[in-house]
């Protein structure tokens, strides 16, 4: 099975973000970066499918400047076979512009499966996967929380608000992966060493026109919490009083 996984390099979220001087981006100073959470699940799903079949080929693709090679190398060290950097000065916010570049790369790749994370944890748009599927005219399943493949068909589950649904579709297909499906492995030392020798191709990204842009970024108002009203069950009457008279939620 030939599988492509599209991955994104994102800042570590366990940090206090600052707005950059341009007022429309996050200050990069001191940020750590890694593969977007859901993309890690997608890479893991690809590797497990390959292992289960005993053969196959996993290509990881990332769009952006040279630094995304770091993220691609991580996927290679997890076990992916080859990597492609679609070179662009920066990653646009516009999902369709990105989908066009990915579709151009994926179109003639002969992939049985094209995987994405459910969403990029930074921009949180959740659009690139299904848009790429439409551009490639492939069946698409989003936010798969389980996935079974047999006889060229896939069965997948999507979590809904208080429910879930099961869908079936033929391969080749585009699938975006939710968490809970397969916890990503950590790269082994052998994997890290091996990754250095694996092919990493750099191509110019054929981005589409950009119509969606960030005009401004701001930090949400700080919560003014931190008020401890008491200890143990004895504090309950005071809590109930505050919920009624102050918060007016009871």
């Amino acid at each position: 099975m030939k599988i492509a996984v599209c991955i994104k390099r994102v800042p570590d979220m366990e940090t206090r973000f600052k707005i950059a001087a341009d007022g429309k981006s996050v200050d990069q100073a001191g940020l750590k970066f890694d593969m977007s959470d859901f993309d890690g699940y997608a890479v893991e799903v690809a590797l497990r499918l390959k292992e289960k079949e005993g053969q196959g080929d996993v290509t990881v693709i990332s769009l952006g400047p040279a630094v995304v090679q770091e993220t691609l190398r991580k996927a290679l060290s997890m076990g992916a076979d080859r990597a492609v950097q679609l070179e662009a000065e920066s990653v646009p916010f516009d999902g369709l512009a990105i989908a066009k570049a990915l579709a151009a790369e994926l179109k003639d790749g002969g992939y049985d499966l094209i995987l994405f994370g459910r969403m990029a944890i930074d921009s949180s748009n959740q659009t690139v996967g299904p848009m790429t599927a439409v551009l490639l005219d492939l069946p698409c399943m989003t936010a798969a929380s389980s996935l079974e493949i047999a006889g060229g068909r896939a069965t997948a589950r999507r979590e809904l608000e208080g429910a879930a649904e099961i869908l079936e579709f033929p391969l080749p297909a585009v699938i975006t992966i939710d968490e809970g499906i397969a916890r990503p492995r950590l790269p082994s030392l052998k994997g890290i060493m091996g990754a250095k020798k694996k092919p990493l191709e750099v191509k110019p990204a054929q981005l589409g026109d950009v119509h969606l842009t960030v005009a401004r970024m701001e930090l949400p108002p700080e919560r003014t919490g931190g008020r401890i009203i008491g200890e143990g069950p004895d504090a309950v009457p005071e809590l109930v009083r505050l919920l009624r008279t102050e918060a007016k939620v009871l």
Partner: protein
Amino acid sequence: MANTFAYAETRGGELRRVALEAVTAARQLADASGGGEVHALVVGAPGVAARAEQLGRYGADVVTVVEDPALDKYSPEVVAATAARLIDAGNFRVAVFSASAQGKDLSPRVAAKLGVSMISDATSLEVKDDAVVSHHPVNTGKVIAAVTLTGSPAVVSVRPGAIAPAESGSTARVESAKPAIDPASARVVPKELIRGNTAQLDLGEAPVVVSGGRGLKVPENFKLLEDLAAAFGNAAVGATRAVTDEGWRPHSDQIGQTGRLVSPDLYIAAGISGAIQHLAGMRTSRTIVAINKDREAPIFKIADYGIVGDALEVVPVLTEAVKEAKKE
């Protein structure tokens, strides 16, 4: 005068609250930009036309009903093709979807079919000159992006709960249409809808959310939270990622960066330390109560009211107190 499109999501033939939110958002947008009609699309098995009246009350001028026995469950390709065809054929400036699980599947498909970009998970929505402008939380809600989308039609998905459904008392014209593609030709086939606990309110819609973490010690203790939720009568029970990873609660109950994002009127965190991953999913709640043994737990930093103590001891007492308060 351009019109506004709204997709009315259903489940099992019933309108979901997010359908009313989408129609309300479309109505408000249309009114703010000087009028124009709101056209709602509802898709389902025969009988779903009965939902048109309610969509009219929430502001739809026209309800297009697509009924087909094969569309009793959400069929992504059929609905996307049908919505795209309607939007393409009409004079629409903006097409509004919900950023629900279904809406997040559907709206990018529709946008790509129309060849346009889209705004996701908008918490505000406005047409300004030749652009649609919105706010959209990024970086797990730690940063808010003000985004600008040019081009028409503009596809937007609206964050569930961001726009309160409001009746505007109009009566809709009902039109029926056929699916844009034969449901039997869809490659992606819906097989089954698995309903969760339907007696419980949905996490995203409940005014009160009672949530538990590892501090509850064993899965059985979630019964205490269910009792508290029942005492409120308008509450849903959520959980942290640690708890859903352990399989104590279903994955769909997880509140956090990678799970559900909720902002109820009241959020009660019981036995939750407050990992960043969890805070990302609930920090916009109006009032936050935290109950935790550890006085240094990060959850207290964002809680309006904190009680230092064992959730297993505090919650049952709170449940009784809420029952008493509700009696009065």
